[in-house]
């Protein structure tokens, strides 16, 4: 398992996908935080908290996992991977662990980029700022969500092995279905793995405010873990059944 994980981490480091997604996510997040911190007025503590809950990283981390796994099918490198790591369970676990680590790293880099920029601008404008403890609290919640999103993306990339299909399906779900559910069927949305449960973990609802109807952070983590297990079992079953030609 350690060898397979090591190999997966080398794969991540030796293509441009991880760097491209990290730079794009960080750039967009810094831009949004800088604009918001520069232009918004009469900010409350909740507003600032929502600002640093990096909304842009989630889709990028999901895409990173989906692209990483579906790329094995697209470039037909899955046979080579399976020859090195013939047990599908070990193969799947190493992918999940590698993309959990990659998700955490991506989120950490984005947070390290937005916190000083946002804090400096807010401080310069005499707006509300957060304490170091508040930033740490936001950071660990963001990292936990990132640790779930990387592997969830891997599962999506296994179940939808067409790379374009996986990306389109993820974006369509996040931008259309999930958004619609949060507005039209909150009671359904709050149990979902891509919207409601991550919101429960970060403590920021769909309108950017803490929402008493969100599940607790602990329940969010446990249920998100359940979703990940469900996705992983489905992906593993699919990978075991498939002929790798």
């Amino acid at each position, binding site marked *: 398992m350690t060898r397979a994980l090591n190999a997966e981490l080398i794969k991540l480091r*030796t293509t441009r996908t991880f760097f491209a997604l990290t730079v794009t996510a960080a750039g967009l997040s810094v831009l949004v935080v800088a604009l918001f911190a520069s232009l918004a007025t009469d900010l409350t503590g909740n507003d600032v908290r929502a600002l640093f809950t990096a909304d842009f990283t989630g889709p990028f981390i999901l895409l990173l996992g989906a692209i990483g796994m579906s790329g094995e099918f697209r470039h037909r490198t899955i046979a*080579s991977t399976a020859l*090195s790591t013939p047990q599908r369970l070990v193969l799947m676990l190493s992918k999940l662990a590698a993309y959990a680590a990659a998700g955490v790293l991506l989120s950490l880099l984005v947070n390290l980029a937005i916190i000083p920029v946002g804090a400096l601008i807010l401080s310069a404008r005499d707006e509300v700022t957060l304490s170091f403890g508040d930033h740490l609290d936001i950071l660990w919640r963001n990292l936990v969500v990132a640790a779930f999103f990387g592997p969830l993306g891997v599962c999506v990339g296994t179940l939808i092995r067409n790379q374009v299909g996986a990306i389109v399906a993820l974006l369509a779900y996040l931008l259309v279905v999930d958004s619609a559910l949060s507005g039209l069927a909150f009671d359904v949305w709050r149990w979902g793995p891509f919207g409601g449960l991550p919101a429960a973990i970060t403590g920021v609802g769909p309108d950017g405010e803490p929402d008493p109807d969100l599940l607790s952070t602990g329940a969010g983590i446990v249920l998100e873990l359940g979703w990940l297990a469900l996705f992983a079992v489905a992906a593993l079953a699919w990978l075991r059944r498939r002929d*790798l030609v």
Partner: protein
Amino acid sequence: MPAIEVRNLSKSFGSVQAVRDLSFSVEPGRVTGFLGPNGAGKSTTLRMVLGLIRPLRGDATIDGHHYEHLEDPSGRVGAMLEDTSFHPGRSGENHLRVLAAAGGHPPARVDELIDLVALRGAEKRRVGQYSQGMRQRLALASAMVGDPGVLILDEPTNGLDPAGIRWLRGLMRQLADEGRTVLVSSHLLAEVAQAVDDVVIIARGELRGNGELQEVLGGGGAPVTDVRSPYPDQLRDALTRRGHAVEHGPSEQDLVVRAEPEAVGIAAAEDGLTLYRLAPRARSLEDTFFELTADEVPRR
């Protein structure tokens, strides 16, 4: 114990039966050619041996184990699959680094392999910029990462230039002489004949021939003798009277006889006929291959 054992393997893709009840074994210290026309089921069989395709029935083992249960898969078996693919954005060196890490082999092995397959100077280029021949060399290096005892090579000469093919033949011979097992599929029969000790011939997913190369070459069809005489008509009569089939040869004095040279010589001597030439015709691997796969190979 055979290094590779295939027992009653069968596989279908939809309504197409790719492999039917196929059994054969491959011995260590020998180069075994795995031959068959396009679509005969060679690649499917090799992928079943490697655990990449699930057989419908039967099984295949390497050193007595299914591939996925091997302790150190890349240290025991190296595989070069037909149309081996690489991530086009990763360099050849990094591709080998990934495989070395996955198998727990030292990073220094990557440098050795780059030299072995003559990719020095191109190792840092992205694989997307490699020629077909360079990709084949990289695929071979990938198979050799763990310095394995068993090598499975599927059409390894595709894309190699003549010098590369000769180099590969020498490498396969060297590996077998070191006691390793080499199973190589190819449709280039002349190349295989020069390199292999044993052959497995399949067509329509079924076994058609299996054994040592010379044994398989000698096993099919009646012996053929080329004969030349200044009295071809008398010689033809002498041979047909004794029950041997005779055909015209390349010139008026030449005949092709379906008999051993001894029988032709005796017939000529008994009838007092002079012979200028009496030569057994050596059967080629190509002759044997076409005979064994006659229902499969299109004739022109």
